[in-house]
């Protein structure tokens, strides 16, 4: 794994606005097929970090490479699926069926001047099947529950056949039962389809068994390579204001 080109290669990344340091000197690599959770307190800079990875925010200093390329030279954005923090908060009156939204996942790759091809439609159907929302295809997005919306947003991202999925707090406002189901789906995408998964979350206790690495972001980053066994991870997390006994309790249950 270490010999391949990382999907993301981040070096000494800093983000400073109005003399306030939001992120400071962050470095990490993300490799293909990894399953990574990012935790950290509110306002710690998690969303900002993700936005910089996607080119939505310009770092003050440091370098980001995607598949070995500079961000400005990278063109294959369809390889990266992104579900933003406010994705599920769609305006209820926005005129979109579930199918309309999932089809957006094909928009950037369709040939100019042509409608969605048969292949495109098939990929849209596959994505809906994976997220178990086929029955909802013709429902209006505004009528769905939080958990259903969340799966629609991920299906939209999946429709572009991404190699990596980046999810920013996908589970806020979703009930516990749906969350469990959701993590099962995520883990399946990672294991069966080999999709690299990076997600920001608050409920680390629920998913700690599956994740390969844990990033704690609070201005600085702490990368924890084996969150299940390394006790120091827990200590480091608490240093940075993370609710570490979630991790702790979880370990004792097993």
């Amino acid at each position: 794994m270490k010999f391949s080109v990382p999907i993301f290669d981040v070096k000494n990344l800093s983000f400073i606005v109005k003399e306030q340091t939001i992120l400071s000197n962050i470095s990490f690599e993300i490799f293909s097929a990894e399953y990574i959770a990012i935790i950290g307190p509110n306002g710690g800079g998690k969303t900002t970090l993700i936005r910089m990875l996607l080119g939505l925010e310009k770092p003050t200093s440091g370098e980001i490479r995607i598949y070995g390329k500079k961000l400005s030279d990278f063109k294959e954005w369809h390889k990266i699926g992104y579900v933003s923090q406010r994705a599920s908060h769609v305006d209820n009156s926005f005129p979109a069926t579930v199918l309309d939204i999932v089809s957006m996942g094909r928009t950037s790759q369709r040939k100019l001047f042509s409608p969605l091809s048969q292949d495109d439609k098939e990929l849209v159907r596959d994505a809906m099947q994976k997220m178990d929302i086929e029955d909802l295809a013709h429902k209006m997005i505004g009528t769905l529950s939080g958990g259903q919306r969340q799966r629609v947003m991920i299906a939209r991202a999946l429709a572009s056949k991404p190699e990596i999925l980046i999810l920013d707090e996908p589970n806020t406002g979703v009930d516990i039962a749906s969350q469990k189901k959701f993590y099962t789906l995520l883990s399946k995408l990672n294991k069966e389809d080999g999709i690299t998964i990076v997600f920001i979350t608050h409920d680390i206790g629920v998913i700690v068994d599956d994740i390969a690495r844990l990033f704690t972001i609070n201005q600085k980053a702490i990368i924890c390579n084996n969150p299940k066994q390394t006790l120091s991870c827990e200590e480091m997390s608490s240093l940075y204001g993370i609710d570490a006994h979630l991790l702790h309790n979880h370990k004792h249950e097993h």
Partner: protein
Amino acid sequence: MFEMFEYDFMQRAFIAGIIIAILASISGTFIVLKRYSLIGETLAHSALLGVAIGLVAEYNPLWMAVIFALFSAWLIEYLRSAFSIYSDAILAILLSGSLALAIIIVSLGGAFNNSLFSYLFGSILSVSSEDIIVISIFGVISLVTLLLFSKEFYFIAYDEEVAKTSGIKVNLLNFLLVSVVAVIIALSIRVVGSLLISALMIIPTISALQFRVGFLKTVIFSLIIALFSVMAGMTISFYFSLPSGATIVMCVLFIFIISLITNRR
């Protein structure tokens, strides 16, 4: 009922009106969904400035309207990217600036007359054969652009940032959309008038949204509502000798109220 079509000017007005209804409603859908409704109002006033210059300098006012609306649209997009937080203020400044300048120009040029009045509120009497040609040419170009990029415009209206991260050239397409809207507004001021055109862009879509249906149906509903309003409005305008823009807007408002009532929950 159809005796009005015995008049050539009425035939021309109907052709222009139908083209405008199609363009205004389709482009209006994207503008409304982007929460950019106010831009129509501003561009209409910039188009009026073009008309004023055209009237005084004796150039074709329609051409001048197209040029000024386009220039204004580009200026808005440039200023928006340069001073992103003040985007609504930019619209207001350009609106009043254009209007003030237009009034000064027509006052100095002595063109404050019926002709200007017809550009403010629309007139079925004023559509010339040359206008029909200009409206058709630009109309086809605008419609083709809207249809070619409708999926992209829809995605951008839904979530600009996610569209950007999926590889869609958002800035370029935003630029293209406002350009098309500028052209459509300029073309519309003959029949609908610059003070009322933005209503024809916005209200059909807002009415269609009340039905809570998917994207394609929303566009089709809004198209039907705009077509009906324009045709009914022009007919009323003919029989009661009223400015067509005003009668068209009253018709579209009437449909809006009906769609509100029938979809009440």
